């Protein structure tokens, strides 16, 4: 058991492990920087390209800094060139997207919270089946529901409208939002509900006064998730809307792919950045709550 290791050999061992730790650390940083640049590099290329003039882009130097900062492509992407027909630009579609995303996120989050609340705190016969079917909704490929949904929207008389897209995104969001809220509420002790019932609070009062005020972390998670999903959606937008009712991703596609003249890469890049900007903002503002909400456990009273 007692190996005879002298003080000097301990010193040597210590030196060795120090060296090893240092090398590992350098390796770690190397890998991290490598991965980070893998993600940052395309963004960098997008930004510098959007600030270059077309002649400069044609020289083919992707990564060089623009010789002169040129904001014109951004202005064109946002506001157009100023002539009438055939001039596609993002501004009206950006507001279309906002008008679609905000109600859809609010509605799907609220309905998800309610459903999650019922499925965990007001259990009834067959509730686990309902939850199972809702989960099933998370895994149905989007493409599979396009036709039935188009028909439904037609019958309801809201096809090719922002309202129609709001409905589609709300309905499609409910499985996910329910899943989030159910998993959060399951960790909240049922005794809280019992106490409130004895105190005389009913179904809605318990939800609004007791559960909702402690749901902030999961609300943030759900809002970010839904916002990203709906804002970035192209499939539903392109299928159920066209022309002036289209959301921004559809407009972006039209701008970039259907230009008949020379491809203007700088305008394309600026448009892409504009279209992705709101999600970026949401992540920067609420990202830390996102992680916290995903990992937070029960709220212990």
């Amino acid at each position, binding site marked *: 058991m007692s190996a005879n290791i002298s003080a000097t050999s301990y010193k040597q061992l210590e030196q060795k492990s120090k060296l090893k730790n240092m090398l590992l650390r350098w390796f770690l940083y190397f890998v991290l920087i490598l991965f980070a640049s893998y993600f940052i590099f395309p963004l960098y290329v997008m930004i510098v390209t959007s600030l270059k003039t077309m002649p400069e882009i044609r020289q083919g130097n992707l990564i060089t800094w623009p010789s002169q900062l040129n904001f014109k492509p951004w202005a064109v992407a946002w506001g157009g060139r100023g002539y009438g027909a055939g001039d596609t630009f993002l501004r009206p579609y950006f507001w279309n997207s906002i008008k679609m995303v905000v109600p859809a996120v609010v509605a799907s989050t609220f309905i998800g919270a309610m459903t999650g609340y019922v499925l965990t705190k007001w259990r009834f016969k067959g509730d686990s089946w309902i939850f199972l079917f809702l989960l099933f909704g998370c895994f149905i490929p989007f493409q599979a529901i396009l036709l039935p949904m188009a028909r439904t929207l037609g019958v309801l008389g809201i096809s090719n409208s922002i309202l129609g897209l709001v409905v589609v995104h709300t309905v499609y969001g409910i499985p996910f939002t329910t899943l989030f809220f159910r998993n959060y509420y399951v960790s909240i*002790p049922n*005794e*809280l509900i*019992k*106490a*409130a*019932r*004895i*105190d*005389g*609070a009913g179904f809605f*009062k318990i939800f609004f*006064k*007791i559960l909702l*005020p*402690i749901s902030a972390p999961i609300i943030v998670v759900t809002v970010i998730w839904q916002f990203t999903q709906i804002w970035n959606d192209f499939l539903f937008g392109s299928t159920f809307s066209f022309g002036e009712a289209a959301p921004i991703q559809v407009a972006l596609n039209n701008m970039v792919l259907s230009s008949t003249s020379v491809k203007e890469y700088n305008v394309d890049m600026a448009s892409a950045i504009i279209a992705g900007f709101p999600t970026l903002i949401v992540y920067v503002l609420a990202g830390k709550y996102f992680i916290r909400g995903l990992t937070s456990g029960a*709220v*212990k*009273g």
Partner: protein
Amino acid sequence: MITLKVQDLSKNFGSTEVLKKINLEIEEGNFLVLLGPSGCGKSTLLNIIAGLETIDEGTVFIDDYNVSEVEPKDRNIAMVFQSYALYPSMNVKENMVFGLKQSKTSKEKIEEQLKKVSSFLHVDELLNRKPSQLSGGQRQRVAIGRALVREPRIFLFDEPLSNLDAKLRVEMRREIKKLHQTLKTTVVYVTHDQTEAMSLGTNIAIMNHGVIQQYDTPENIYNKPNNTFVADFIGSPSMNLINGQLAKEANNVSFIPEGSNQSGKVSLNNYNFVKSPQESGNDIYFGIRPEHIHYKKTNDTDFEVNLRADLKEYVGHEQIITFNYYSQEILGKFPSTVKIETGQEMKLFFDLSQISVFDKKTNKRI
């Protein structure tokens, strides 16, 4: 006056019978403890009394009113939970008055009640704090306060001390006892801790597998257990149940321990049989608590034996010794000042005035 009455109550969860024909009555001002191992149905019974769980069969009466179909809030009860169940988003004050606000009590009355209760429970300093900023004991106090402000007919406690550490638990136990002494409100209290049950209850209902095994005063439950389950459940260490047979000859009734060949006959002449003793040769358990095995003679009727000490467990103020009694293990409890060596025989005295005898077939007291 009977405050709470439970009649022929049954409850199933799917195919499992959780409660089977429960009957209980409790007089005004009494402290009823529902005691039993986990899964015995005690919490379900409490939830049914509170109205949080539906009834399959039977009735619950509060003050002679059938409340079986009445909403929890209208039953004039208040409940304290194991996890305290304080509303996390509200401060102490809001927590305490939430119930009164729901029942549209006047502002003055709410203020008055809050003042009274918070000073009574010494939580008036904490009124503006959130539950997360309170210690375990303070949370417990607030939870009790939330129940108190409603001035209920019956207090329901669902294992309120289980989440506290050992020291605090003893303190809070005493406070609950004091509370009951001052307010004299009827209490139904669920616990799995026998010390809590014994020290708090005026009546204890011991439950197992959805059946009340014995409903009695703490003294009777300890001294005259109805059956082997109660005998085994109450007391630490639990009662020695020694295998043997009943022997009856002329006017003498006695117990013959298994493997003793008549020589170790213990007289049961002074034992109060429930009914006149059964036939000779019946298999029985001779029940004696470890604390009723003495190392010196205390009563004339004490039964004297010489037993070998096999094992010694020292627990501070006392020691628990395992003896070999005709190859059956029995435990004795002695002050730790008594010098006992393992492996040696010592003279012991069974206190025959404290014994219980059970039928081995039915496990019931005879």
